[in-house]
């Protein structure tokens, strides 16, 4: 199973409407902005949980690309640092495999909006392959 296929098969990925963009040296996931993803209507800003979920999904897609398994890897833990509030715009994420072991993949991921140098959030997690 590959990343794009996984996004099509995971109901929550379809719910968020996450897409894949091919980019230099890897894949970039895109979370299109939608009003019903807002957590703070006054700012407005995406719900922190949605940002966290998008990071985890981006990490998962990268793990699937690499592991090329038929099963969806299971998350063991995931940690998110919220760096800036995520405004009412599309969000992009790119993941990097820190370590790909026999059973565990450690994946780091970063998300941004307009400027890749200004991350809105960063995450790291372990997945059971």
């Amino acid at each position: 199973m590959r990343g794009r296929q996984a996004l099509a098969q995971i109901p929550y990925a379809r719910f968020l409407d996450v897409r894949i963009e091919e980019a230099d040296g890897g894949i970039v996931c895109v979370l299109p902005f939608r009003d019903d993803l807002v957590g703070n209507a006054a700012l407005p800003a995406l719900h922190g949980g949605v940002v966290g979920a998008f990071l985890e999904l981006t990490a998962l897609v990268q793990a699937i690309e690499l592991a090329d398994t038929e099963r969806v890897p299971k998350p063991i833990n995931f940690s998110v640092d919220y760096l800036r509030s995520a405004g009412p715009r599309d969000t992009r994420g790119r993941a990097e495999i820190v370590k790909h072991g026999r059973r565990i993949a450690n994946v780091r991921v970063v998300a941004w909006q307009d400027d890749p140098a200004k991350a809105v959030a960063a995450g790291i997690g372990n997945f059971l392959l």
Partner: protein
Amino acid sequence: MGVTFAILGCGVSDVPEGFALAELFGAARGEMVEHIPHCRRLGMTVEQVGPRSARVRLPYRDELVGDPVRRVVFGGVITTLLDHASGLAVFCSLAELKAIATLDLRIDYLRAAEPGRDLVGEAQCYKLTTHVAFVRASAWEREPSDPFASCLATFMVGANPSESPMARALRSRVREAP
């Protein structure tokens, strides 16, 4: 009418004083998520709030599934549940309403959540300082003693100058009061 709240082992009777959101601790607790678009979209409800704690319920929906074979809810959805419960626990700790923002959050997925069951997330703000709040939370679908996820989070307090939705909601209550 007295309302009883349980804070991890110790019972507290009557509506407590000294909390900015005390008037939302009872039947009005639903207002804590009503004005949040994503919570409305997910059908999230507030089951219980009290001093420094909150319990939130998220109905199971097929669209939230992360593993199409096992039909288990996606891990990131549990992040949303626990982030929200944690944020409410921080709000319920404040003597004076301020904007808050999640600084970091770490989740351990202890086991798979059972498909088809509502997810319940409970959080407790165990330490509040001038600028930072520390929270622990867990989530379960059957028994609080058998959680499928546990979580630690920190929040900035007084995070940004713009008004929080919670502050607006509270002010509109005051306006509506006879």
